[in-house]
């Protein structure tokens, strides 16, 4: 789950990470008031759940109220990588001596939370990793001890030679780690972390993502969720026990199992088609899940054909067939559907499907080829 910068800043403040003053605004007049109240140079920043807003013109410096108003007029309503800007953050533009990067991620290989810091702040860390990998300091945090004082200090001393400044940065590293662990984050970035002319260390921009699997114990984080249209469909599917992602193609697919679902998408592509979605109906599929899944697929106006690919393990093919039959009763559609059932109770399932006029095939590749063919009719 992603949150906006303004929400990350709220969390930073809660954990006593110093952040410059800011005001969230939905309208130009709110921006005008905010700029007037802050009464100094400000930055107007688009709040969208996508990276690269700076390059897209979604972040502007304003030396006075007029400039803030003009920036707000340009940014509000702007489209950034398909996301419409509905709100901006008006933030105190502090004086900056130097920019740094601080980030925490879950590292799969060491199975730790890993702290990454760099003296190359203000740019994307992936960029630094490509061009100046030696400028990134990585530290794998032992979960049993957490980030210890001396460790945070040692790392900070590699960025800041003044011990007082280093202690301030070390304290921020520790607070960010605490925030990260306590909120089940999967990314927490301060980029840039800045040093000011009067030797303060501040978080200027923040990015946080959270572990979907942990949201059950993070009510405060969950309350910050602001899903877009596609995500609403995905969340709705999730609540029905389905894992669904909308894609750009026109062949809808319904599969049991995430790996098989990906392989099915790949197969469609391999034979010259384009998958319209990823859809995993999960392990122990009830007929209802099949109905829900078919509803999602057939309501997607881009879908020209549907490929159903089931390998019965725990999932029984006859259950899937029953669900399909019921779905066909309640949904009227002229979108062609091709079904492949294999594994547990496949014979029974195929027998049941005879009462429908759904074409059946015996292998994944046949199913993909048939679905593509049907989509082109």
């Amino acid at each position: 789950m992603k949150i906006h910068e303004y929400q990350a800043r709220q969390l930073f403040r809660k954990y006593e990470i110093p952040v410059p003053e800011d005001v969230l605004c939905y309208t130009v007049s709110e921006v005008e008031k905010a700029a007037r109240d802050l009464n100094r140079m400000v930055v107007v920043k688009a709040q969208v759940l996508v990276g690269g807003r700076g390059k897209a013109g979604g972040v502007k410096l304003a030396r006075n109220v007029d400039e803030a108003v003009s920036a707000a007029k340009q940014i509000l309503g702007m489209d950034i990588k398909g996301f419409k800007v509905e709100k901006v953050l008006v933030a105190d533009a502090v004086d900056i001596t130097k920019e740094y990067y601080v980030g925490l991620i879950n590292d799969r290989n060491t199975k730790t939370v890993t702290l990454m810091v760099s003296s190359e702040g203000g740019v994307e860390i992936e960029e630094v990793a490509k061009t100046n990998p030696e400028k990134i300091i990585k530290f794998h945090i032992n979960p049993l001890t957490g980030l210890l004082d001396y460790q945070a200090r040692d790392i900070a001393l590699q960025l800041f030679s003044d011990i007082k400044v280093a202690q301030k940065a070390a304290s921020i590293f520790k607070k960010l780690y605490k925030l990260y662990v306590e909120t089940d984050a999967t990314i927490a970035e301060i980029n840039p972390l800045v040093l000011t002319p009067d030797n303060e260390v501040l978080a200027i921009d923040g990015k946080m993502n959270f572990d979907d699997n942990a949201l059950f114990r993070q009510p405060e984080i969950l309350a910050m969720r602001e899903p877009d249209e596609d995500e609403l469909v995905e969340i709705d599917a999730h609540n029905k026990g389905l894992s669904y992602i909308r894609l750009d193609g026109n062949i809808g697919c319904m599969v049991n199992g995430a790996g098989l679902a990906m392989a099915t998408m790949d197969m469609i592509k391999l034979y010259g088609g384009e998958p319209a979605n990823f859809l995993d109906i999960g392990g122990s599929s009830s007929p209802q899940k099949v109905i829900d899944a078919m509803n999602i697929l057939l309501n997607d106006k881009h879908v020209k054909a549907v490929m159903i690919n089931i390998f019965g393990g725990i999932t029984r093919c006859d259950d899937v067939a029953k669900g399909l039959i019921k779905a066909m009763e309640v949904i009227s559609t002229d979108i062609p559907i091709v079904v492949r059932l294999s594994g547990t109770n496949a014979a029974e399932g195929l027998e049941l499907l005879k009462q429908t006029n759904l074409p059946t095939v015996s292998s994944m590749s046949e199913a993909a080829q048939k679905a593509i063919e049907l989509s082109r009719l």
Partner: protein
Amino acid sequence: MSILVNKNTKLVIQGITGRDGKFHTGKMKEYGTNIVAGVSPGKEGLILDGVPVFNSVAAAVKATGANTSIIFVPAPFAADAILEASEAGIELVVAISEGLPIQDMIRITPILKMNGTLLIGPNCPGLITPDEALVGILPANIFKKGNIGFISRSGTLTYEVVNLLTLNDFGQTTCVGIGGDPVAGLYFIDLLQRFEDDPETIAVVVIGEIGGDAEEQAAQFIADKMTKPVVAFIAGQTAPPGKRMGHAGAIISSGSGTAAEKIAAFNKAGVPVAKEPNEIPELLRQKLKK
């Protein structure tokens, strides 16, 4: 021979009284797995399907000498169940439970390491040594005893491919579903080493997917350490970046973890990568002919 589970496996079922636990206990027993105990707090003394139930793994281990456990408890309690098994001296823990928070996995990892506990999963279908022991939720009928080692990050895709292998007369020594979570127990390389050491295994099939770099590491390991042939398949070539493809671990972030990178790594290591699952038996045949 085989790896990890066999006739000597003494299995304890954690969460035996739950819906899934009960169902799969029956299936595993039917297959001939040596199930010695179940755990369900507060239900000590119960006998379920002929299996004695205990309040704790420690009590089960003490009474039955269980050495392997399988976990069916819901995700919020699964990390605790894994630790319970580990601290009770269980050597191999197979966590079927789906949806564990990553921080739970990170937190328990060093403790498992200290205790020397091996973990498969979480969010995995488990493993099977055909004709010896099924410790998981895999559909037993598609497996066949033989000489191929099998490792996969996914569930049904495993069944799809194993079914193809069996139909093509490639029986299996052991098949392991390692699960689709970003932070999990044993990874490809841990199991490749075991298959390399297993005298009965003559070749290994690896089914990877997008996300992380476990496949790249496997490729490096194969190039450096393995004498036995390996054939691979990678799911998710068409997956877009930033979207989680069902599995928490199947996500391409900032252009890394792509199928293309993984395929390139395998090819560099001399491992043929099938374009579609169908091709796997043929690739195996070619590799084994040489």
